[in-house]
């Protein structure tokens, strides 16, 4: 087993080391930026004074700390999080593209498929070590990004938050798995590296866009009435605020563009009815909804990746080795 692991790494040496290097650079940078954020030593009451109405804001002390904290968070942590957006997709592509496609283009597939007899066994033997490496390196990226994400919102005190959603934690691994499965299947299907790289990159781009759309769709689908504190400033307490709606007396929540006058019972002054019965409420998801989103994210991308892995077995079983 160790021998096959070592040989699998040797065969994809360039891809494996490139992935490790990429993740190390981004992950270690994330940890450094986190340390820099912590190093500012800005107390939470300096960063978000509005959630501490009882504390007097000491501008002389807090302004420089707040400025330094938010500059690092915006410029440095923002850059790392942008990289984290692409990292799992790039690593997934790097490791997946050549695993089968490279064997076919490189002319080694006939040799190893003839030796192994069972292509399923061969693919499993090639796949498992690379999959372990993929998960291990992305786990590091996931942890580093999680630590950075938490450091960017110290006023959450470690509670879940929708800030930087999709860019940290287990979702990073799931996205990497999805890109890996996709590249693997495209490589097995085309048997050529360049078309595989181009097509997989394009599909991975859609995958990245799909991730953002998934979050928006999920938030829309799960949006509910949320309490907006008096200090509301658009960054709703780690949740996601998507707008305001009318709350009707029967419990229905409707768009603000709706014709409310038509809803008033007949014979009643609509304006008076509206003033007394209809509330304007905020709609969105609470920070405590984040674990549910995380599960959805991991399930969707994980299932997507696994489906492509399964498809690759079927493709390899059927195709010619050249």
């Amino acid at each position, binding site marked *: 087993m160790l021998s096959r692991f070592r*040989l699998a790494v040797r065969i994809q040496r360039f891809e494996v080391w490139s992935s490790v290097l990429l993740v190390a650079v981004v992950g270690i940078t994330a940890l450094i930026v986190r340390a820099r954020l912590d190093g500012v030593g800005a107390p939470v009451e300096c960063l978000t004074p509005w959630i501490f109405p009882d504390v007097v804001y000491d501008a002389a002390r807090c302004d420089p700390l707040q400025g330094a904290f938010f500059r690092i968070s915006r410029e440095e942590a923002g850059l790392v999080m942008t990289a984290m957006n692409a990292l799992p997709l790039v690593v997934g592509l790097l490791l997946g593209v050549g695993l089968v496609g490279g064997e076919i283009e490189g002319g080694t597939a006939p*040799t190893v498929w003839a030796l192994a007899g069972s292509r399923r066994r061969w693919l499993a033997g090639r796949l498992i070590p690379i999959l372990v490496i993929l998960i291990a390196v992305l786990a590091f990226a996931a942890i580093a990004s999680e630590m950075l994400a938490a450091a960017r919102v110290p006023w959450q005190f470690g509670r879940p938050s929708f800030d930087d959603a999709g860019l940290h934690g287990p979702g990073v691994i799931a996205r990497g798995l999805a890109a890996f499965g996709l590249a693997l299947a495209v490589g097995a299907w085309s048997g050529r590296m360049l078309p595989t790289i181009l097509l997989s990159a394009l599909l991975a781009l859609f995958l990245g866009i799909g991730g953002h759309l998934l979050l928006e769709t999920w938030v829309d689908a799960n949006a509910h009435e949320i309490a907006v504190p008096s200090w509301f400033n658009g960054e709703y307490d780690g949740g996601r605020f998507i707008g305001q709606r009318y709350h009707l007396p029967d419990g229905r929540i409707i768009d603000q563009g709706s014709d409310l006058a038509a809803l008033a019972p007949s014979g009643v002054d609509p304006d008076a009815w509206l003033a007394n019965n209809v509330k304007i409420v905020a709609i969105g998801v609470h920070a405590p909804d984040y674990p549910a989103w995380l599960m959805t994210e991991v399930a969707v991308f994980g299932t997507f990746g696994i489906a492509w892995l399964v498809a690759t077995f079927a493709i390899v079983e059927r195709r010619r080795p050249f």
Partner: protein
Amino acid sequence: MAPMDNTVMPQVSSTPASLRAQGLTKRYGRGRRAALDRIDLDITTGGITALVGPNGAGKSTLIRCFMGFERPTRGFVTVDGIDPARDRTRALARIGYVGQEAGLYRQLTGDEHLELAAGLRPGFDRAGAADHLDAVGVPRQVRTSELSGGQQAQIALAMALGTRAPVLLLDEPVARLDPLARRDFLTTLRDGVRKGGSTVLLASHIIGDLEGVCDELIVLAPAAVMFHGSLEAARTGHAIVPATDEVSPDDLVASFTGLTGRRVSLVRRPGTGDASLDDVVLGYLAAANASLGAA
């Protein structure tokens, strides 16, 4: 030889053969010319059979059908009684293979290739394969990208021999090698096969290399088997005469321009002929061209 499996093998004869093709037709895409057209072949156990023919004759296609890499359009092939189109895994378990390209990983050493083969093929004789590489002087600790084409071919052959498979399929493995490397490869193959007793099908279009190595000869013209017999029968069963000589149509194989540049005829003369192997192959290929032209 492994016992025949009646559940997977279409029974056509009571005599088992290591490699058999019956009515084998392979067509790539609709309306295209058949790469193989109703081929019947029986290659019996043991020895090296040369599969000779020009480019496009279907040599690689035939080998790929035996390996289950190509699915016959019609007919079937069997490897030790197993139809690879139905049970590729079992068929491949009886095959060692070397392709035209050595099919090696540039970044791995010879030793690592043997390690890889041992992981993939149960019962792989890693020590025997390593001994083979040592015997032919191929350094085992050097990456294959740094080895010559001949040395790479020797590694591929060592991997095939190490399988101890009853059947070896070699798809023009010496086509890209220089004469010395070709000689070394074929000598190693002959010695290895004599020790192991495998049945070998060696595709080649370099006829001069085959004498002293092969036991049987198959001349495959585009899509059809033109000759199948022992090398001895090929030589002693045919003669070359001037094309102007009067020859019975039953004895005439074909008239063609010989290696000397003169028009000659290849005729069948069982037991008394003295044709060279080149003459026999050229004669049968000329016959194939003539029949294609007539068609």
